[in-house]
């Protein structure tokens, strides 16, 4: 009999991998969705179990060797507090968006493709989970490709509603492939100098190099990785693929991507910059301090300004996401305790808030047929619960107190002050003010406009959508009030990141 507890790490990836393949054969009707919900639900349960096991064990990490091959030959899965947390977020959001997806997918995707959609959907989640859990650099690349290819397909499935989904997907495919090949090159060069693919091993080999700071191969690897990762996490100005992809993807896909895909990109950056290269090399020997902070600040300012100009609520939120990535990157580029903790907290907080908001927009698209400002106008009366969720999520984006966004901003600004970078504090606050403007565009349209067209006849979203929406929005409020779990995990994970590989 398979021992679940002992094989927990690999089951987190295997369950959705097999589940996704099986999903191809689930036929039509409600079955593909039901199967996906079971699979993602089980995966979520496994990640909860993983987190509890880790916290209960008292160890800094749990190592698992695939097929019992020693880790320097085979693949090691390595779960510490940081990736247990990210796993929890990805699997949790994956489960909630799957539950939510049923009606939205029925509405937006032809019935004969549902099994394919859900198969690809689960595989995308598999890829994201795999990237997060693995301790092997090449494995990261393999799973990155799994998640990327599936995500291109998912975005392209928005074509039945809007043909522009195809070009958006193609654009992401090109840029995403460039990013992935850069990452592959970076990993290759690293292997060249260290002779290993195991992340921990790589780190100790690099530390042993006397000429680390001047070794050309290492420098090139670093450059490739930073650019590749920036592309994957949509750091300004390498974000060009993101807004259109989020806007034209099916609603459920936008929610899943906004909440998880770029976050896993950030997680990879954590692993490579802090875990493999180490803080000393990444942030002190290299000028990434300056470059990443600069890009992040520009991203916060310019993408927020662009968000203000959008007339489609989905693309408004997409540009806002680029800005929020700026906060996350700025946080970890500070390379101090508060900054990194703020970054980790914001990964979670933003995932929950944005996921909920994209789902609310999906519910609006389901009822009204679009997410343009003109569709939103006056919807506060017709769909009060959906509109209310959107408004509360918006307050979270601004960073109002009692929302999770406030906590992230508190840490980020504290981190900036700790580092003596008051300019960054100013940028973060200006970003909040811009967020106030673009969020208020939505709120005014929702609550103080007169409904026209289909909006005037819209009714409240169905419960199967409302519940997942409010679970996420509720969490974004809850973790703005009681931060003992998130802040504790984030500060502990931050201190272990700053101490090198845990």
């Amino acid at each position, binding site marked *: 009999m398979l021992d679940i507890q002992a094989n927990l790490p690999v089951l987190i990836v295997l369950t959705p991998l097999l589940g996704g393949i099986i999903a191809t054969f689930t036929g039509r009707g409600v079955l593909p969705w039901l199967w996906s919900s079971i699979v993602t639900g089980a995966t979520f349960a496994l990640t909860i179990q993983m987190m509890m096991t880790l916290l209960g064990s008292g160890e800094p990490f749990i190592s698992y060797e695939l097929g019992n091959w020693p880790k320097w030959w085979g693949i090691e899965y390595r779960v510490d507090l940081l990736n247990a947390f990210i796993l929890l977020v990805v699997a949790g959001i994956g489960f909630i968006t799957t539950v939510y997806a049923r009606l939205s997918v029925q509405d937006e995707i032809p019935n004969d493709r549902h099994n394919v959609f859900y198969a690809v959907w689960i595989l995308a989640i598999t890829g994201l989970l795999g990237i997060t859990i693995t301790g092997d650099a090449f494995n990261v690349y393999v799973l990155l490709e799994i998640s990327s290819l599936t995500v291109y397909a998912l975005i392209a499935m928005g074509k039945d509603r809007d043909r522009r989904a195809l070009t958006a997907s193609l654009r992401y495919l090109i840029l995403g492939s460039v990013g992935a090949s850069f990452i592959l090159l970076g990993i290759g060069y690293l292997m060249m100098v260290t002779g290993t693919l195991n992340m921990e091993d790589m780190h100790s080999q690099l530390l042993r190099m006397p000429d680390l700071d001047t070794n050309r191969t290492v420098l090139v690897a670093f450059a490739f990785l930073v650019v590749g990762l920036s592309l994957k996490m949509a750091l300004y100005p390498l974000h060009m693929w993101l807004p259109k992809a989020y806007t034209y993807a099916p609603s459920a896909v936008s929610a899943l991507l906004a909440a998880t895909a770029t976050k896993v990109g950030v997680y990879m950056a954590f692993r490579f910059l802090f875990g493999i290269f180490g803080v000393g090399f990444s942030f002190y020997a290299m000028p990434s301090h300056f470059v990443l902070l600069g890009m992040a600040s520009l991203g916060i300012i310019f993408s927020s300004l662009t968000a203000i100009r959008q007339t489609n609520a989905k693309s408004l939120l997409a540009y806002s996401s680029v800005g929020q990535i700026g906060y996350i990157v700025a946080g970890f580029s500070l390379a101090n305790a508060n900054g990194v903790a703020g970054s980790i907290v914001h990964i979670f907080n933003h995932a929950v808030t944005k996921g909920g908001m994209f789902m609310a927009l999906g519910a609006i698209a389901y009822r009204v047929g679009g997410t343009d400002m003109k569709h939103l106008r006056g919807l506060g009366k017709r769909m009060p619960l959906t509109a209310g969720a959107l408004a509360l999520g918006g*307050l979270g984006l*601004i*960073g*109002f*107190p*009692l929302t999770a966004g406030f*906590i992230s*901003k*508190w840490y980020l*600004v*504290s981190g900036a*002050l*700790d580092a003596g970078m008051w300019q960054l*504090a*100013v940028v973060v*606050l*200006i970003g*909040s*003010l811009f967020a*106030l403007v673009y969020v*208020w565009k939505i709120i*005014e349209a929702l*609550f*103080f406009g007169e409904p026209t067209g289909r909006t005037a006849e819209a009714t409240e979203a169905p419960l199967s959508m409302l519940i997942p929406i409010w679970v996420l929005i509720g969490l974004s409020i809850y973790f*703005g*009030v*009681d*931060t*003992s779990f998130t*802040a*504790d995990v984030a*500060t502990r994970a931050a201190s272990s990141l700053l101490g090198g590989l845990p």
Partner: protein
Amino acid sequence: MGIELPLLAMLVPATGALLIAAFGRWPNLRELLTVLTSVTLLGVVLQMLPVVLADGFWETTWTTEPVVLFEMLPGIPLELKLEPLGMIYALIASSLWILNSLYSVGYMRANREKNQTRFYVCFALAIASVMGIAFSGNILTLFVFYEALSVSTYPLVAHKGTPEAVRSARVYLGILVGTSIGLLLPALIATYFFTGDLAFAPGGIFQEALTDGRLTGPMLGVLFFMYMFGIGKAALMPMHKWLPAAMVAPTPVSALLHAVAVVKAGVFTVVKVCIYVFGTTSLVSAGQGEWLIYVAGATILIASCIALFQDNLKRRLAYSTISQLSYITIAASLLSPLGFMAASIHIAAHAFGKITLFFAAGSIYTAAHKTKISELDGIGRKMPWTMGAFAIGSLSMIGVPPTAGFISKWYLLSGAWETGYTFVIVVVLLSTLLNAGYFLPIVWRAFFRAPPSHDGHAPLSPQDDAFGDPADETAAGKPHAHGHDDHHDDHGEAPLPIVFALSCTAAGTIILFFFPDIVLGLAQQIFKGLPLP
């Protein structure tokens, strides 16, 4: 020991809001609930009064553990704590809320406003936020409820949903949230960064950081600047534009929120920050903060001058509020115990006087549909109660005995004398003249001018509606071009709840002059808590 009572004071209006929302379909029940909630709240607040007034408050109650709501950030919980200044604020807000609820019932029904349930729910939520502000145990808690107050009052300002109302509400929220996120929040985080503490302490929390050199005098001055302009609700110029913008709201909102709850949240925060964060000594010894006296003085005079030229009654009241708020700020900026006392007393005195004036403005609008001062000729003969109350409120603004405004002005002048700021004395005297200049003509016009003849004045234009609550007829789109004035020329007094409410607050203005014991007692209690110079 009554230490859980602050929590109860927040929960009562919050629960009230839920109940009002649940029973919104039955107007009578909904409004009964509003009134009952407000009465209950006053009962709860009064329970706390003896605790705060008791001798040895600072040694006993103050030193006990605060009520912790949540551990919001590690080491900085959301916590509530009893404190005399907050007590003044809570007492005023809760007692005036009862009268305002009665008034709202009369006003909202007589003017057939839409979305009344939303109105009452948001109102109760705003009061809950006020209680949170009043009893906050540290600056973070204060900030949280300060923002909650901005958000919960936004729907009240935008209540009518007309483009004009939405635009004004945007200004309202933009300035209030912009200043608080842009200046107050970073000031807060910087305070935490320098002191490692956000708890209120009589005498301030900066001494240690100043003595061990973490914080320099100029930095302290920058922080003080960020605090004072970050508290946009105190309407210190140039952060005052939101207040005239907010006048687009229905009059009960202007009355309670923009004469009492919201603006007082601003000056309350100013005073609280001056006493419990900066303290009397650290700013003075660092040679910072004197500029505030001049900015506040300028605000007093400039706002009064603008008020002089406003023909719209509510706008004139709004500018008068801006100037009166800076009385409180200037008193606090003296950074002397007498100044702090004057500030605390003026929070109460101005509240009673100004709410009376707003009640009267709403009463005139409800009965006569007039919003302009130039239309008020002879109105005192038809509405003697309303205009009588208006006269009393005006006297209190000017500071004439026997009204409450006199007492606070007395303390302010004493404080200015004691600290030797001639500038403050000059400002107060000039401003008194200006106050008389823009209030007394209204009273004179109302009582001593003959009412206009029938065709002597034009019908309401749309611009007037923007600041004077368009009636339901116009909102419903019925053509009603000339009807207003002809129809309303034979008006009498406003509905009974309105007249009752404004008479009560006018009486309160006078009673506060003869029996200021509670407010004075609380103000002296603050005095006792301060470390000896």
